[in-house]
C-alpha cells in the first residue's frame, strides 16, 4: 500500500490543479506520500511519476535532494536536534551525546521498539530558543538534558497529543473553493490578466 490511497489521490489531483505545470506538484506530492506511509517508498515515487508525467528516475532525483524525505524507515518520533551555530554555542553537542546515550542508538538508527530515531540537523530557525529540537517537525525550545529525558518519557507514553506521527506536516491544508479560484493561466497564455486590461481602460 505505498501508492497514494484514494483519499490522498483526490488531494493530489487538487494540488496538481493549482500549478501551471504538473511537475511543480512533485514536492507537495512527495510530502503527501510520506504523510501516508511515514517514508517515501519506490512504489510511491513511481505513482508520483505517473501523476506529474515524468520518469520515476526524475522523481528520485528530486526526492533524494531534500533532507525531509526519508527513503528508509525512521522512528515513530523522529527527533531532529539542531546543531546550528546558535545551538552549538549553547550546548547542542551535549544534547546530541545525551540522546545517543539515553536512547541507546546512534544517529540515524531506530530504537528497538520502533519509537525513536534522532539526528543532528542544521539551523531550524529558533535561534533565540537554543538549544532546540523538533519532534516530527514540532518545536521543543530550550532543551536541557533533564528536559530531554522528560520529553522521551512523555513520548514513550504517547503523552504528547500535539505531536502527530512522522510524515504529517501541516494539519491544516490550503483549500480553495473552485468558485473563489482566480484560475491559473496557462504558461503559454501571453495575454495580460483580464483585470489589468480593465483597470487600464478605466484609468
Amino acid at each position: 500500500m505505498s501508492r497514494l490511497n484514494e483519499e490522498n489521490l483526490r488531494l493530489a489531483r487538487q494540488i496538481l490543479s493549482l500549478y501551471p505545470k504538473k511537475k511543480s506538484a512533485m514536492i507537495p506530492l512527495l510530502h503527501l506520500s510520506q504523510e501516508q506511509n511515514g517514508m517515501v517508498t519506490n512504489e510511491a515515487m513511481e505513482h508520483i511519476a505517473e501523476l506529474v508525467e515524468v520518469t520515476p528516475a526524475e522523481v528520485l532525483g528530486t526526492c533524494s535532494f531534500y533532507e525531509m524525505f526519508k527513503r528508509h524507515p525512521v522512528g515513530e518520533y523522529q527527533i531532529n536536534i539542531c546543531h546550528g551555530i546558535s545551538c552549538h554555542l549553547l550546548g547542542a553537542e551535549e544534547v546530541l551525546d545525551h540522546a545517543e546515550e539515553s536512547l541507546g542508538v546512534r544517529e540515524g538508527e531506530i530504537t528497538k521498539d520502533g519509537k525513536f530515531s534522532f539526528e543532528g540537523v542544521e539551523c531550524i530557525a529558533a535561534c533565540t530558543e537554543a538549544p532546540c529540537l523538533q519532534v516530527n517537525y514540532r518545536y521543543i525550545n530550550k532543551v536541557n538534558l533533564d528536559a530531554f529525558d522528560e520529553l522521551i518519557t512523555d513520548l514513550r507514553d504517547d503523552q504528547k497529543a500535539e505531536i502527530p506521527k512522522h510524515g504529517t506536516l501541516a494539519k491544516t491544508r490550503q483549500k480553495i473553493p473552485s468558485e473563489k479560484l482566480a484560475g491559473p493561466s496557462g504558461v503559454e497564455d501571453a495575454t495580460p490578466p483580464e483585470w489589468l486590461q480593465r483597470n487600464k481602460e478605466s484609468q
Partner: protein
Amino acid sequence: MNFPLITTSRWDVEDGHTLEGYLRTGGYQGLRRALEMAPDQVHEEVKKASLLGRGGAGFPAGIKWGFLPPDVWPRYLVVNGDESEPGTYKDRILIERDPHQLIEGCVIACFALGLSQCFLYVRGEMAHGQERIASALNEAYEHGYAGRSILGTEFSVDVVLHWGAGAYIVGEETALIESLEGNRGMPRLKPPYFPASIGLYGKPTIVNNVETLSNIPWIIEHGGDAFAEIGAEKSTGTRIFAVSGHVKNPGVFEVEFGITTFRDLIMGEDYAGGIRDGNALKAFIPGGASAPWFFEEHLDTPLEKTIVDNQGSMLGSGAIVVMDETTDIVKACHNVVRFFSRESCGKCTPCREGTNWLEKILDRILNGHGRPEDIDLLLDVCDNISPGITWPPKQTTICPLGPSAVSPISSALQRYRSEFEAYIALNRATPVTVEGRTV
C-alpha cells in the same frame, strides 16, 4: 524608540494570526488603498519607500520590481519563505504570528506587478507556520482578500502555498525557482542575474523575501515617504534582528534601520541585555552564518547596510550571533564550515570539493591530528573558492554559498590564529589509520 512598529505590531496580539484579529488591528487597509490606485502608483510608493530586500542581499525591492519586462505575460511572484541561514529567526515568526500581513503584502505586490499568480514557498520544517498560513489563506479566500474578485473589484489573484522539503540552498532565488518547478534545488547559471526576465517556467518572475513583503501593507497605507522618513537615508524603515548565542536575553527585535547600533542591540537592557554571566565579548556574527565576523571594535557600528558593507561584512538576513570569551573559536569555525559543506548543492566544483575539504581539515585539527601547514592549506582552499579572500567575495561558483564558507575561516584566523596553532601543537604525532589510509 521613537518609531512605529511596522512588521511586528501584532506579535503580542493573541489572535493576531486570525482574520478577526487582523482586521481589528487595522489589517487589509493597505490593500483597500492600493485598489483605489493604479498598479503603477503602488509600485511608485514602494520605490519612494526605498525598501531594501530583507532576505540577505539587500537589493531595493522597488527597483527589482522594475526589472520586469513590460508587456510580457504570464509573470509570477514567488515568495521566499525558506528561512534557513544559521542564526536567522524572523520570517518564521512573521508567518506564524501575522500571516495575514504577509498575504496582504503578496496581494498588493501582485496588483502592482500586474500578475495573477503568486507562489508562497514556505520551508517544509515549519509545520506550525504552514498551518497558520494555510488557515489564514483559507480565511482570505473565503472573505475576498485573495482569489477571484478581491474586495469586490475586478482584481483577481491566486496565492498558492507551496511546501519546501529541507535544503538551505533553496533560499537562493534561482534555486527556489528550480525547486518550485519540481527539480533539485540547484542555482541557475548567471546571467541573467535576476529572474525578472527569465524565471519560473522561463517567464518573468519576482522573488521577494517574507519580511520584505510584510512591509508592503504599511507602506501603501501610510505612503512611501512616511516609510522613508524612518531609519537612515539609504537604510529606510525598520528591520527585524534576531540576537542569539551568549547573551542574557536572546530575542527578536524590530529596530529603526540604520540608526540602532550593534552595541544597543547586544548590550542594551531593552534588547539582548549584554553578555551572559558578565563575560567578555569574543566575536559576533553580524548578519547570518555567511557574514564575516565582527569584534569588540565594531560594536558602535550602526545597523546600516552601506556602513556594515564598508567595514567588511554584511547585515545579511538580520541574524546576530554572539560569542563570549568561553567560546572555542576553532569549534565555532568548524561548525559554520560544516554547515556550508553539508548544504553545498554540488553543482560547482570549487564549492562541492572546497567546502568538503575545509571541513575535513578542521576536523583533523580538532581531533588532534592537525599539521603545521594546515592553516596555510585552509587559506589556500579558501582562495580557490573565493580568489583573494576579499570582501565582497569574488566567486568561482554560480552562487555565494561556497564563498560563504570562507567567511568564518578568514575571520577566525584573522583574530584568533593562536587557537588554531594551539590545537595543532597538540598533534599526537602518532599516525592514525582511517579507512585504510594514514592521515
